[in-house]
């Protein structure tokens, strides 16, 4: 009975993870600009891969494998948002345009228009417009 339950749960989690990953790839292929692509990829792929690793932990049912799987899941959920945030920030500072249909740009009032330079960047040219205080 426990075998049946574990097998059904493994199949469900594995299929859910694969379908979520496919949705993430579809989002990164079809979305119009960097920021929408990135939010489609980061969140959905993290959940999908987490589901697949959880399926692996349930399938083997071993203490060592489960500890490793939990380690991978924690690491994925910690690093995914950090990496996505850093790429979005770098893309915005380097002047990648938002999609035409974007409704709000809350960073727009905090940076001068393109080309942007960080105030903390020592390599900024002297004639560059500085950030407002």
């Amino acid at each position: 009975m426990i075998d049946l339950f574990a097998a059904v749960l493994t199949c469900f989690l594995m299929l859910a993870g694969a379908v979520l990953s496919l949705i993430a790839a579809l989002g990164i292929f079809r979305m119009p600009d960097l920021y929408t692509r990135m939010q489609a990829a980061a969140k959905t792929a993290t959940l999908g891969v987490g589901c697949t690793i959880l399926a692996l932990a349930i399938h083997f049912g071993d203490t060592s494998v489960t500890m490793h799987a939990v380690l991978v899941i924690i690491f994925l959920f910690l690093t995914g948002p950090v990496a996505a945030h850093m790429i979005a920030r770098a893309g915005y500072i380097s002047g990648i345009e938002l999609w035409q249909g974007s409704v709000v740009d809350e960073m727009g009032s905090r940076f001068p228009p393109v080309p942007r330079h960080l105030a903390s960047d020592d390599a900024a040219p002297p004639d560059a417009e500085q950030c407002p205080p």
Partner: protein
Amino acid sequence: MSELAVAIVPVVALLALNLFALATILAMLRMLMGPSLADRVVALDLVAALAVGAIASFAILTEQPMLLRAAIVVALVVFVGTVAFAMFLEKRGTP
């Protein structure tokens, strides 16, 4: 009933591997097309996450729990690479 459910796990693992392969192809297309370097880095990050998922599915298919170590290594290395790429993009200043 229980034997059938246990026997169907490798079939589902193979199906999941095929879905991961399709997703990797789509992400690779974005990596080829991506108008800016940041798009390519996002696509590379997604390809690495898909590789971790595919390794997990392959471990279930072949009954090899050792393969999880490879997934850990891929996840660790790619995070460092993505952060390094983001810092490089920020310093460079042009898309």
